[in-house]
């Protein structure tokens, strides 16, 4: 996947849990595009419409807390969320997002520096984030190489398929 991402921001607050990202009543849906229709419906029913041209979600602390449901990051990815930036992530959501090929980057101070609608640029591999609209730049700790590799392959399935075939 492309590790350089550009798009407008949609900002949320702290502790965005997986129940508001993908409510339990939609957990029997299997088509990711169907899941995407309910992305973040616990907070904003219009989110899928707002996101459809491709967006970067910005969150506060503890983004993705709660359930281990991978349907949450899947719903975001198929709703055209290209990347999630947050002050911090809940650990299962963080792993799930990486595993399905949705870049997630922890960036202290991002929440205060971004408003919904700001144009952002993210270089996932280099750990560089820029708010183009406001002229603010951030540098974060780079993700470990094996995580970058999973993201570059498009997710853990593709990564594993490649690695197992190599053997």
């Amino acid at each position, binding site marked *: 996947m492309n590790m350089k991402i550009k798009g407008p921001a949609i900002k949320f607050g702290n*502790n965005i849990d997986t*129940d*508001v990202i993908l409510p339990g*009543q939609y957990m029997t849906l299997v088509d990711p595009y169907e899941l995407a229709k309910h992305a973040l419906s616990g907070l904003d029913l219009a989110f899928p419409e707002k996101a459809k041209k491709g967006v970067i979600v910005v969150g506060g602390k503890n983004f993705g807390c709660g359930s*281990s449901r*991978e349907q949450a990051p899947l719903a975001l990815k198929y709703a055209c969320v290209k990347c999630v930036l947050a002050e911090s992530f809940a650990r299962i959501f963080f792993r799930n997002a990486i595993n*399905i090929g949705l870049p997630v980057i922890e960036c202290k101070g991002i929440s205060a520096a971004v408003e919904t609608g700001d144009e952002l640029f993210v270089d996932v591999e280099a750990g560089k984030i820029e708010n183009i609209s406001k002229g603010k730049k951030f540098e974060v700790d780079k993700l*470990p190489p*094996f995580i970058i590799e999973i993201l570059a392959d498009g997710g853990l*399935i593709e990564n594993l398929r490649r690695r197992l075939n190599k053997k």
Partner: protein
Amino acid sequence: MNITEKILAKASGKKIVYPGEIVDASVDMIMVHDLTGPLAVEAFKKIGAQKIWDNQKAVVILDHQVPAESVKAAELHKVMRQFAKDQKLRIYDVGRGGICHQVMPEKGHVVPGTVIVGADSHTCTYGAFGAFATGIGSTEAAAIFATGKIWLKVPEAIKMNVTGEFKKYVTPKDLILSIIGRMGVDGATYKSTEFAGPTIKSMSVAGRMTLCNMAVEMGAKNGIIEPDETTRRFLEGRVKALPNFETLQSDEDAVYERTVEFDVSKMEPQIACPTSVDNVKPVSEVGNVPIEQAFIGSCTNGRIEDLRLAAQVLKGKQVKDNVRALVIPASQEVYKQALNEGLLEIFTDAGAIVCGSACGPCLGGHIGLLAADEICVSTSNRNFIGRMGSTKASVYLASPATVAASAVIGKITDPRKLEAKA
């Protein structure tokens, strides 16, 4: 090393590990259920793997949407039954198991000192038995089905040192709510939380499970308790062999990021108010909150000890007219015991409905959902927006005693107050 570090060192073939280090750990047991399993099966097929690495180390439990309430759920169950058949996996189908986190230890799939992962966030429950247990997603589960390995960052540990004796109607649920209230919902993110101290030593397995179960609600990677005689008494006859518990005690000089002290002796019944699990206060300070639904059950509080406590409060009383009370034993084993002890009769006489062992209303996907503006007081573990149905409904989290007392009065009630009235 502390107990978590000892388990991770052993699982990754190392003598010693340090917090922050990334290890490649061998998985001793993996569990998937009906809502996370089908995605894992799909991912497993996409990886191109044929057989799972070890069919003795994987368990399938149908518990979220059981019995199937929709064709969609029925299809998911079918996928899991077929996968279990193809891979020759142990499966606990409708009527044979119950909630995964209760069934796993009951049926002997939880062994102290092992690494257990489950495609469910409350997998951390098994730390109550001195196992390293943590939640994962479906794709990760598929990768483990294929390889038997998982990468893990060795977590820094926080020790929760608990002292004092619980007063009447104050329970381990009140303790864990109080802990989360103090720590915050991200107060232990990525960390290990080790529960220790005299109160833990004298606590039942059920109470320990309630504590470890909710470790994830403060962001923890795992909750854990050193195994002891209480652990042995529960597991003997359930697991094939028990390890030497001496190797599973944290060393005297084990390193903790910090130790947090809790004294339960003056603790009152606690409640987590909407819409965050750390929005905790004493029940006595909530004020006038009328309820429409009371739920006693879930992987947090659906055990026999919880049902006994609820029955003690409900015996000879009636659930208030405009309230519906749901009781769900955590497993078939708990259900049968509650039946034998006459608890189900007490619930039924009180006007509560007893449902089959499953997750029930906890995650708002199956039965007992809430309409807009309705309020539920629940023994479960999450009170997020929309968790139990409508995004305009509210959920309060409390102990079985508090929920039962609230069902009788029709509003959130301190169980000690109900007793004083009687």
